[in-house]
């Protein structure tokens, strides 16, 4: 079974530029998550989708970050404009969405973003 796919793996941009990340979840998984992991910290949830609807985006900085999950499968996360403090690894995860709080989330390899 293929895992969660993410691209690109690495991205370097200058501040005020825009950037987009792509995620393809495990086939059949209804729930998709985007996390931000700053160096030396644990991942922090940015947004959670159930199929193509948003369940939780309370920690998403909506003035610069946006995310969508068209057709309930792939998802993109965009940052516009980027700030220095956005330098982090952006992780995508998916879960079946059938077991509630006991569901296991499977993580992709992440995209390492450096903002100069």
């Amino acid at each position, binding site marked *: 079974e293929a*895992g*969660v796919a993410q691209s690109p793996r690495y991205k370097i941009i200058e501040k005020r530029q825009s950037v987009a990340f792509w995620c393809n979840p495990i086939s059949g998984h209804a*729930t998709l*998550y985007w996390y931000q992991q700053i160096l*030396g*910290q*644990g*991942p*922090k*949830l940015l947004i*959670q989708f159930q199929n193509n609807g948003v*369940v*939780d985006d309370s920690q998403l900085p909506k003035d610069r970050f946006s995310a969508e999950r068209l057709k309930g499968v792939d998802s993109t996360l965009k940052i516009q404009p980027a700030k220095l403090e956005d330098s982090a690894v952006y*992780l995508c*995860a998916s*879960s079946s969405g059938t077991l*509630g*709080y*006991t*569901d*296991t*989330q*499977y*993580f*992709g*390899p*992440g995209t390492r973003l450096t903002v100069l």
Partner: protein
Amino acid sequence: AQSVTQLDSHVSVSEGTPVLLRCNYSSSYSPSLFWYVQHPNKGLQLLLKYTSAATLVKGINGFEAEFKKSETSFHLTKPSAHMSDAAEYFCVVSAEGGGNKLTFGTGTQLKVEL
């Protein structure tokens, strides 16, 4: 509300000796608890999870963890460390009523020496 405290930011052991990574949790509801491992430049991999069944949970690569409600702990152990175990380990909690939101600890960096 839910939270996790990993008591050690760095742990160093010799190859072949036991590993103990400590984790305490806080949750208003029945929790699910997970341990994930992250090797350099790789994604997070699930080691094991507790979901209110057996309190002693066995995971991959010889790791296990014991859920102790009275101590609100979920420590990760392995009888004999291997060089390949060197990585960062995260204790994670998810709670009923939390919408499957994972709350991560700050991580424990495990170093394994010859």
